[in-house]
């Protein structure tokens, strides 16, 4: 480095097991207390550990099942796929990673958008999935989020966003960074048309997603223990050599510092979102 400056890396797409706080061991073994569950048990428990209350990750489809009235969800823009404008190639081509992620998750990209009812109240939904390339935001995530905002703006309704993301998608380079202002413009338009947004942050919501739409809800909620930091703990400790507090960047710390309206356990999330949808209904 010619300038002698310390380099900082603030966009983290974390996929390695040693980087994902929940990722150690079997996916159905609780990192909080070591209890192990069958998948159907865990699904039944909304993927919250019945022993210690640890919140496991939830994929987008299952999140929709948890939140939305059965049979009411209608998906939009399912056909959108990432292009590869930079023809990005690291150890493997981006195009190959995309295909693999789609095979693994059954999703076209890291977000599922649509409309549905929550306890009888209709809303637009934008639900992220960490399983698709670390929930990273590229052109498709940005575009689908924006279209959801536009649909909510049209009806003067509410957009419910559930984020889970390592940040901007490096493989789309600067265009991934441009999804920050793009999504923010859409929220500004939504607010100007008297629409509203409820942002639910789940583990983890970091980097460019935290630094854009996820932070801009009229109401911002988080699940217990969710990491919500701009820079990840590893980057912070390596860059600054500071000793990190135990709850660094977690929802509980963010709540204390005033960045959240409430921490809502998953079992209460559906009822809480429904209550807010009622409060934001305009006569």
């Amino acid at each position, binding site marked *: 480095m010619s300038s002698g400056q310390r380099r900082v890396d603030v966009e983290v797409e974390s996929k390695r097991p040693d980087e994902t706080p929940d990722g150690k061991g079997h996916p159905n073994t609780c990192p909080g207390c070591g209890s192990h569950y069958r998948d159907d048990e865990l699904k039944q428990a909304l993927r919250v550990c019945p022993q210690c209350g640890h919140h496991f990750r939830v994929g987008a489809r299952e999140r929709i099942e948890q939140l939305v009235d059965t049979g009411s969800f209608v998906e939009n823009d399912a056909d959108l796929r990432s292009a590869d404008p930079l023809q990005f190639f690291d150890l493997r081509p981006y195009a190959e990673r995309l295909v693999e992620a789609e095979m693994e998750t059954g999703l076209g990209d890291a977000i599922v958008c649509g409309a549905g009812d929550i306890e009888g109240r209709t809303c637009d939904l934008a639900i992220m999935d960490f399983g698709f390339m670390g929930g990273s935001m590229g052109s498709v995530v940005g*575009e689908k989020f924006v279209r959801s905002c536009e649909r909510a703006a049209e009806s003067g309704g509410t957009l419910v966003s559930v984020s889970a993301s390592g940040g901007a998608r490096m493989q789309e380079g600067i265009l991934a960074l441009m999804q920050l202002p793009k999504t923010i413009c859409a929220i500004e338009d939504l607010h100007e048309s008297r629409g509203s947004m409820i942002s639910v942050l789940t583990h983890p919501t970091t980097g460019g997603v935290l630094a854009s739409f996820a932070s801009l809800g009229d109401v911002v909620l988080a699940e217990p223990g969710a990491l919500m930091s701009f820079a990840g703990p590893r980057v912070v400790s390596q860059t600054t050599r500071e000793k990190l507090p135990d709850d660094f960047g977690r929802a509980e710390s963010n709540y204390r510092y005033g960045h959240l309206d409430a921490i809502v356990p998953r079992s209460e999330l559906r009822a809480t979102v429904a209550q807010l949808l009622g409060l934001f209904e305009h006569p």
Partner: protein
Amino acid sequence: MPNEAEMRLRERLSKLGGMKLLRGTKLSGELARLQDQLDQLRADPTAEEIWQSVELARHVDRPYTLDYVERIFDDFFELHGDRGRADDSALVTGLGKLDGRTFVLIGHQKGRDIKERATRNFGMAYPEGYRKAMRAMSLAGRHGFPVVTMVDTPGAYPGVAAEQHGQGGAIARSQAAMVRLPVPTVACVIGEGGSGGAVAIAVADRVLMQENAIYSVISPEGCAAILWRDAGQARKAAAAFKPDAAHCLELGVVDGIVAEPEGGAHTDVDAAAQLLEQGILAAFEEIDDLDDDDRRRLRREKYRMMGVLASTA
């Protein structure tokens, strides 16, 4: 007779243009403008040229925001503090005259010597810096002063206190404030446009980039550490994600490239400042006469189109 570089750029543009594109892509409407700028462009930058930009953008002698401010603005008066908690000197704000008009200036500021680098935190702002920027933006909106921003940061500071004070939210809200501004805005990437910390003050009607500046989603070292598992592969990473000005223009992320003196801005700071001033004034000329509502609408439409998509439909 187009030269080889121009031919390569045209070829790449047509390749992009031939992809299956939906609404949300910028290329169709922008081809004409891109072609206008072809003559300003250097060759399709090779990996070595991209890395040269990275090195020049970070050069120890590269002019920083205040070097340009003293050459471009008259009667500059610096505004300090976020009126809440602190004054973050990694980001400067102030008022100054240019062409007889009062402007609001917002820019990252790196330090020149060791002591100043520490004070300026290497140009890495805390949330307090972005809140100071928002304070300056709201002042600009109130008084109808146009806003110039100068972007030069490795990134927003990744520290414990920065997170506790709400780094992510501050960056999001700073962008939202720029989206809302009723006044004309021009952003210039003058060195390192590092990720969220950069775009926090770069959402503008016209975004310019100096010839040897870089603008990227992550630092080359960070990208290499994650994707190659080796920070030493930074050159490869930079070649892959293409943070140079020519690529940013081609992708529609910036609206224009500002030339630098031969060898880089540091070789002749006065000349670099003069070129930057011309670039800024020309950009304002394009947007000054627009109605405030139209300008704000066009600004949003520009960002609405950012990205390249495909479809299975």
